[in-house]
């Protein structure tokens, strides 16, 4: 195993979140002012604008934070292989030249696939330092028996996945059964071994922002390295208000436990402007370290196409058709 692959297997370079014992006092008394959250989310993006070369740089940064994802019933090893090729070299040579990045071409943050697609992805990414992330635990519903879900994690890790995206049992949150939720996530963390654990909360299903905060906190106490908004399969996926609440939970956890947790919005980020909005959120709420791929990821597939188109517009003054930017 060469060094780059070794690094990819480690996932991001941060030490793992050791977790803390379940402590409901960290979240039970926390209220969320919905109107204030909405207002903050709305003004974050209207007060700031990123233009010209700054916009181009921000879009490149967003690109490096993408978990390039394919999670369809018709995924094939061939499609995964093509997606991985795209992940290794998302921007064309001309574009890299125009952006002045030809000597250090950016890559995406990770490639995210179903467990059975991990082996082709690992093969296709060999030699790059791009980790393979695998969804697991009965994605997207997460309602298969726990031992089956844990086996799924062990399978994906065994096949070489460096990061595991798990889904929580939403019923535990809706029923305020924090102990079950904590035990479940902690068991999954255990099953991950050296792979990093990203916890999908399924915020579209959680109904209230208070639930979102509590679920975020329990997941982090149980040892999640990333908290992630959604599977991309709910009716409502990542929104700025929900992201703001999760990011605040992450800040609170950092203050109490002293561990940096990553954040991953997924689903609903389709155009370059969305990526800028989330980067602004990260910069304003957490600062520069959370604008890097080891603490910030965007779960998306179509987003990359629009980022490429916007970068082409920056470089040439003209928009190219989406079909010129084949994905997989």
């Amino acid at each position, binding site marked *: 195993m060469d060094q780059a692959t070794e690094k990819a297997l480690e996932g991001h370079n941060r030490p793992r979140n050791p977790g803390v014992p379940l402590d409901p006092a960290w979240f039970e008394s926390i209220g969320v002012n919905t109107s204030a959250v909405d207002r903050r989310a709305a003004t974050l993006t*209207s*007060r*700031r*604008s*990123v*233009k*010209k*070369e*700054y916009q*181009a*740089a*921000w879009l*490149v*940064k967003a690109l490096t934070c993408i978990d390039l994802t394919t999670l369809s019933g018709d995924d094939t090893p061939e499609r995964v292989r093509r997606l991985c090729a795209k992940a290794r070299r998302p921007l064309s040579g001309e574009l890299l030249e125009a*952006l*002045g*990045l030809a000597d*250090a071409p950016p890559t995406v943050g990770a490639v995210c696939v179903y467990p059975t697609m991990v082996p082709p992805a690992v093969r296709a990414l060999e030699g790059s330092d791009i980790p393979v992330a695998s969804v697991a635990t009965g994605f997207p519903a997460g309602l298969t028996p726990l031992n089956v879900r844990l086996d799924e994690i062990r399978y994906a890790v065994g096949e070489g996945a460096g990061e595991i995206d798990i889904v929580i049992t939403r019923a535990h949150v809706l029923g305020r059964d924090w102990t079950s939720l904590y035990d479940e996530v902690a068991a999954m963390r255990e099953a991950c071994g050296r792979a990093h654990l990203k916890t999908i909360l399924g915020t579209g299903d959680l109904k209230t922002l208070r639930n979102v905060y509590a679920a975020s906190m329990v997941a982090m106490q149980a040892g999640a390295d990333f908290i992630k908004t959604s599977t991309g399969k709910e009716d409502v996926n990542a929104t700025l208000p929900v992201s703001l609440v999760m990011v605040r939970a992450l800040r609170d956890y950092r203050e109490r436990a002293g561990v940096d947790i990553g954040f991953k919005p997924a689903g609903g980020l389709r155009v370059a402007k969305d990526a800028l909005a989330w*980067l602004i959120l990260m*910069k304003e709420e957490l600062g*520069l370290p959370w*604008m890097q791929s080891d603490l910030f990821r965007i779960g998306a597939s179509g987003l990359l196409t629009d980022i490429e188109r916007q970068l082409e517009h920056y470089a040439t003054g003209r928009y190219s058709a989406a079909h010129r930017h084949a994905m997989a």
Partner: protein
Amino acid sequence: MALIRDILRTMDYGLSPESSDHVRAWLERREGGFGLFINGRFTPPADLFDVFNPATGERIARAAQGSLSDVDAAVAAARKALPKWAALPGVERGRFLYALARHVQKRERFLSVLESIDNGKPIRNPGTSTFLSSSATSITMPAGPR
């Protein structure tokens, strides 16, 4: 121009300047200075003082220093105009006020930039200069709902 590889390290917002070209051109055409607006027209510019942009210290225009007699003239003109204005029915007065507010609204962009050059404050939120939207509102308010 900043290099993309450098911005990738700092992730600064960068400058996002509002173009002030049209406002500066407008000010240049009035290089001779601004008179006082009395009785529906500008007086010839006289006794001028310099107006600076406090943010940059640059002189942006010259304006007339009003004198006692200017004030008297303005008050006299207003007294003369008042009876006719007061005799108008509310709806009619509202129509004038609305027209005035619309003019402010239509030129909001221009006036925001001009205001920002004049008082040196940044334009914080495009299109919603507090001073201007509130002045448009305060003109329309007495005009009543229509």
